[in-house]
């Protein structure tokens, strides 16, 4: 595929014949194109992202931990997030209120939903972390320092919200990941995935029936 062109530039004696060697690269290009196509179909450019989560240990192991080391739930700071079927999400603040069906509020996974609520509750940490992020951007601190300092900030503040994520059996995996994602966006230091309890289900049914359950219970006098 390579051709040697000879140019006769006069027949002067003693002068070397000039040779230009041209190599035809067309087959090379063909082969490369084939390889590129192969790589485009058989590989993926984006390496998968991961989300690290740490679950609480099981109950028997929990009992071994000293009581004072256990995170104490502060009802002032608790937010319970219930993820229901059909991408619906609800939340209530503090302890469940059995009497007032309006205590359970509807929310969603959009920026106007959970995120707005949590950012509002977590202003102190969010502003500090944002300052750190600015510093990281302008290269005042390194990535490692950023990690260390943001961990410090999250540890320090005492009035950040504690979020309990309670997916119901109707929820999908996407809902769970979305909720966990919001925790990351809002820099929530303490959150846990929990099972829905009897109380949560009662509150939800009470909300759905617009307070019929609590009214009935009040009539029977079972509700304290």
């Amino acid at each position, binding site marked *: 595929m390579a051709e040697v062109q000879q140019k006769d530039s006069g027949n002067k004696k003693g002068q070397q014949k000039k040779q230009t060697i*041209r*190599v*035809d*690269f*067309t087959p*090379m*290009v063909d082969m*490369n*194109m084939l*390889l*590129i196509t192969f*790589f*485009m*179909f*058989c*590989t*993926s*450019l*984006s*390496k*998968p*992202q*991961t*989300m*690290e*989560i*740490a*679950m*609480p*240990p*099981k109950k028997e*192991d929990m009992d071994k931990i000293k009581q004072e080391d256990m995170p104490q739930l502060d009802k002032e700071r608790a937010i319970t997030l219930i*993820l229901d079927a059909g991408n619906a999400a609800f939340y209530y603040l503090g302890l469940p209120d059995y009497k007032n069906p309006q205590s359970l509020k509807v929310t969603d996974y959009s920026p106007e939903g959970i995120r707005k609520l949590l950012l509002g509750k977590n202003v102190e940490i969010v502003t500090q972390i944002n300052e750190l992020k600015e510093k990281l951007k302008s290269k005042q601190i390194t990535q490692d320092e950023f990690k260390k300092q943001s961990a410090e900030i999250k540890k320090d503040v005492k009035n950040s919200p504690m979020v309990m994520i309670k*997916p*119901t*059996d*109707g*929820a*999908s*995996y*996407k*809902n*769970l*990941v*979305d909720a*966990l*994602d919001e925790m*990351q*966006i809002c820099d929530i230091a303490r959150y846990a*995935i929990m*099972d829905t309890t009897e109380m949560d289900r009662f509150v939800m049914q009470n909300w759905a029936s617009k307070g019929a359950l609590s009214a009935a219970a009040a009539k029977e006098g079972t509700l304290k």
Partner: protein
Amino acid sequence: MPKVKVKRKSTFIDMTAMSDVTVLLLTFFMLTSTFIKKEPVQVSTPGSVSEIKIPETDIMQILIDPKGHIFMSLDKQTDKIEVLKKISEKYGVEFTPKEIKDFSLLPTFGMPVIRGENADKATVEKAITLINQNKINEKNPIGVKLFMALPTEMQDKVLKHLGIPNDSLNNQFKDWVGMTRHLMDSTNRGDNFKIAIKADAMTPYPVIKQVMSDLRDLRENRYNLITSLKGGGSSFEESKH
């Protein structure tokens, strides 16, 4: 009058520049991309803003499809062989060296271990007819031994209907994870060993809950959830399939 001479131009196009470009592109693709692992089920992972990349070595990936079938993959073939040997001891199922070799070559595995399973010619024939009739599922499964005796195209066809059982009566999933953890700890790789869950976005929560509670029983409380980057990150991948 002299004839007008039409100058003959050679049609030789210099492809050197073109070749340069393609080689450059090729290098780019080779360096930045990773090979897609062959998976029995196509899952689309939910999006997240998390930017942590997944490590490539010492990782156990748990693949969960929307129907709740569980599959697994380990990055090293030798690990797969070791884990299978431990499983075979525990369940009392003998594997031939060829079966072990074939098993280690599977990119993703996920079939139950069935005690006293036959893999002779008649059983294989029968299994193939059942697969063609779509009668093989998690309730009427094929065990590892019979699976390894099937031809490759039948393996591909049936694997997505199998999965590792993880119900309370027959929780083989726990054994697989537990054995792998044990192997990693005994070869001093326990600190780097990571478990990654790759589940479809539409998987119902109870399926995930069961897996999480199994992992909790094994004291595996830290693991990774594989997600795709939010905002078009997954659409590129999806469009290719």
